[in-house]
């Protein structure tokens, strides 16, 4: 898959795709793999959790101090922001 994957019980799921649909849609769409509904729901929760965790590590552009916004206007991670504050001219 072009997008990043999350592997559950030997199946690589497209994380970005799964994060954009409901649990019911996910279960219905991926039921052919032979996993139980419970397993699919667990996979979905784990994917959502991982995607949400990644999102939390990013600071929205409008909440960034001006000094940490790149010239290209890119959103940077907390760690990058911290590094940038500690070492403004690396």
């Amino acid at each position, binding site marked *: *898959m072009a997008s990043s*994957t999350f592997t559950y019980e*030997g199946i690589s799921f497209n994380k970005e795709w799964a994060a954009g649909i409901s649990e019911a849609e996910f279960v219905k769409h991926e039921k052919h793999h032979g996993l139980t509904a419970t397993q699919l729901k667990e996979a979905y929760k784990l994917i959502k959790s991982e995607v949400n965790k990644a999102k939390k590590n990013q600071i929205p552009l409008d909440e960034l101090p001006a000094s940490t916004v790149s010239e290209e206007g890119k959103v940077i991670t907390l760690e990058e922001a911290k590094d940038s504050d500690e070492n403004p001219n690396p």
Partner: protein
Amino acid sequence: MATSLCGSVGYENTGQVLCDIERGNPIMMVVGSGSFSPSDYASQSSMDAKIIEKLKLANGNSQKLYPFPVIQGTTDQTEAAKYGTLGYGLRFKLVRSKPSYEFDVLAGSSLEKRLMSFDGETVPLYILDDKSQLAGVKDVGNNFIGSQWQVGVEPRPYGDAQNPKSTKITISLVDSRDFVENAFFHTTALATSQITGLKDVNLTYLSKATNVYKIKMLLPTAKLNGDLDIYDDYGALIQPLTFTAFTGANFTTPLTITSVAVDAALKALTVTFDSTMFTALPALAQIKLVGPIPSVLDAANVTGIELISVILTK
């Protein structure tokens, strides 16, 4: 006062460099337009790493290198220099010699099919000799590149119970100056066992149920029904890697793959496309399924193969 033009015709000093480079016996040819910048060949290790990197590039990449099988015999077929003589016997050299060689290599019928794609082609080519010297030339940017050779491939004939037979590869140098004036040599630490080519493995349609496709991974051979299924060796290693799919004119429209799994019973991959996007495709729409590139496969310990895309039909 000068009385001759000898100082202006470009003669060069003729002092001998001790322990100078001399050609050995050819043991391998490496074909392709892969080039090496001065920073690449700044050290033996960086150059060798770059050679390996270019061997593992996907087919179609302009920097890819294709190693030929190890050479088992050489016949010098160099076109001799031509001379002419004046009436009283003074002999002149009219044209310099033209390097040309015939090499014996061991190649099975499956590999011969691949080698034939080089038959009759004029290609950049490096020659590795048994002194571990890789010969090429430099371009105007000081990049190390293969010199241009005309290549011929003759398949192994039937045996005659008298002499061993082999596949013959002939090469003839386009510009004789590339053999001397323009020649440069990289001394490599690589063994021929490290300079190996990739094998094509075809992603192959097996079956489908609406948007769920079963895909085999088969290495084609010249043997009838002899395609090799790499599933047992590599299926589980390939399944977690990145696959992509495209549809539309010239396959420029991405089609989302929602999951990839192994099907142990069928020894195949189960590739699922987004059902909404799939349903929206017209009947008989074509989908190009693309596997991970060789360097990604290699990093996942799937070595020596390239997955070849497959065109699927809705």
